[in-house]
């Protein structure tokens, strides 16, 4: 039992040291001659302007919330689809109830105006 954990531990140490050792070695061995161009972020596109911590509309949050709910809905529907032949009518009824509950939530959201962009 504990031996299994030892393997996990060795694996963890190996996994961390594998990329770490070359990086550390390179840090000590490489010549250090920085220029502004070299130290700039290695990315294509434009220079970033301003701060990343900007305020944005709270409505994105509502969309994210609705999205997560329906994301999870799909995840739950997959196993049902795979096992559709086996679970039969029982599964159909259970899935319908599940969908109806989410539909009630959607109706509520719609009626409350959470789906409109203001």
């Amino acid at each position: 039992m504990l031996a299994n954990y030892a393997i996990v531990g060795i694996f963890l140490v190996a996994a961390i040291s594998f990329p770490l050792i070359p990086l550390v070695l390179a840090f000590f061995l490489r010549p250090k001659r920085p220029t502004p161009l070299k130290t700039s972020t290695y990315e294509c596109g434009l220079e970033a302007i301003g701060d990343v911590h900007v305020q944005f509309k709270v409505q994105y949050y509502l969309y994210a919330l609705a999205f997560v709910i329906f994301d999870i809905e799909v995840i739950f529907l997959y196993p049902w689809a795979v096992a559709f032949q086996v679970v039969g009518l029982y599964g159909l009824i259970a899935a319908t109830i599940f969908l109806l509950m989410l539909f009630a939530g959607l109706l509520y959201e719609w009626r409350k105006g959470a789906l409109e962009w203001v």
Partner: protein
Amino acid sequence: MDALTIPPVDLGLIAPLLVVVTWATGLLLVDTFFIPVGRKKLTGYLAIAGLVVAGLVGLPLWGVSGSTFGGMVRLDPFALTLTWVFLLIGILSITMSLDYLPRQDIEQGEYYPLIMFAVSGMILLAQGADLIVLFLGIETLSITLYILTGFAYPRLTSEEAAMKYLVLGAFAAGFFVYGIALIFGATGSTRLSEIGAYAADRDLGDTNLTLLLGGAAMVLIAFSFKAALAPFHMWIPDVYQGSPTPVAAFMSVGTKGGALAALVRLLFEALPTLNAYWLPVLAGLTALTMVVGNLGAIAQMDVKRMLAYSSIGHAGYVMLGVMVAGEQRGPEAFIFYILVYALSNLGAFAVLIALEHQGEEAWQLDDFAGLYQRQPLLAVAMAIFMFSLAGVPPTAGFMAKFYALTAAWEGGLPWLALVGVLTSAIAAFFYLRVIIRMFMTEPEGEPAPELNRGLTIDIVVAAAGTIIIGLIPAPIFALVERSAVALGG
């Protein structure tokens, strides 16, 4: 693919729960689509109707014992009686909210379905026989309460309370889940009965015992937080003070009843063999809770905060019954105490609401000065609730305390019963202080309190219940006795 065998599901065993959840979901839609703003009281009436129907649906289940969903949900008289008590708590809380919400200008239709969802969480806690189901129950109860606590938006105190409760509650939920993981690691099951059987059948060995104890400790921490046992009680006064008064009333009795009902099952179905480990810990927590709650209440000049501290103290008395639930007396005392405490405490909060005016809070002790001369009946009702909470004889509170203390004494915890007696003597001081203010001082020109139909019904029902159960406890106690039989196995 082989044919899948679907475990038999007996929906009848969760009928009250089903009614509450379906009704609440439907009500949410009916409210948004058909009930115009300004007439949201109708939603409240419909919510009350739903809770009543759920109670009636439970009637034919009396005496039935069984489990379903593969043993994850259990119905027995213990769970059913608690279900009724929880439904009663829900009904009384909604009744006192009907006029409070428009008066505070925070009326929204969602309030009532949310209370129903919270009640469904409590019922699930009473019926759960699996750690995952208990977690589900606790979260259903908590998440709705986070929203309800912040319902007085944009009042800052309400927001602050909701934030505090959310952050600390999420922390406690984390403890719960981690505890479940450890327990599962040690025993290979989340089913309470299987955990119990596993722990009883074999020698666990050091590793597994450590895992199991660690997991149990974490789960107990989560429950202590929800039930407000010291030293996990810090959030109570602030959250109660900030949240809308009916919500505070609901929380004080609801979370306590739900969380401790689940704790009874957890301790005596999953962990009875570890009795030697958890009993001293819980006994210590209980003693501390009674002392901290009752001493803390003395310093409060704000009656709402005083009731918050008193609710901590009462959690300790309820725990007396929980700890000895292995014997017949324990669960009896537990159910009885929850019922009586619910009546007295909801009544006291209802009186507080009657004194609360638009925009101003009249919760200071001085606001009660001379209440007897302004509103004699209200003062008398408040006196009844205070006497009951203090445990003075003709009221139900005395009977409840008497049974809880006897249960602890006979269950092998006499020192704890002594702590209970001493602390309730301390408690008498601050409860009686309110009564003295009401009857023996002159009024200070405050406007007369506003009483309306919902509040009056609430106060009358609570006061009548408190007195009647205090004078003739036999019928209720016969019911409680029969509910408790199934437990402790």
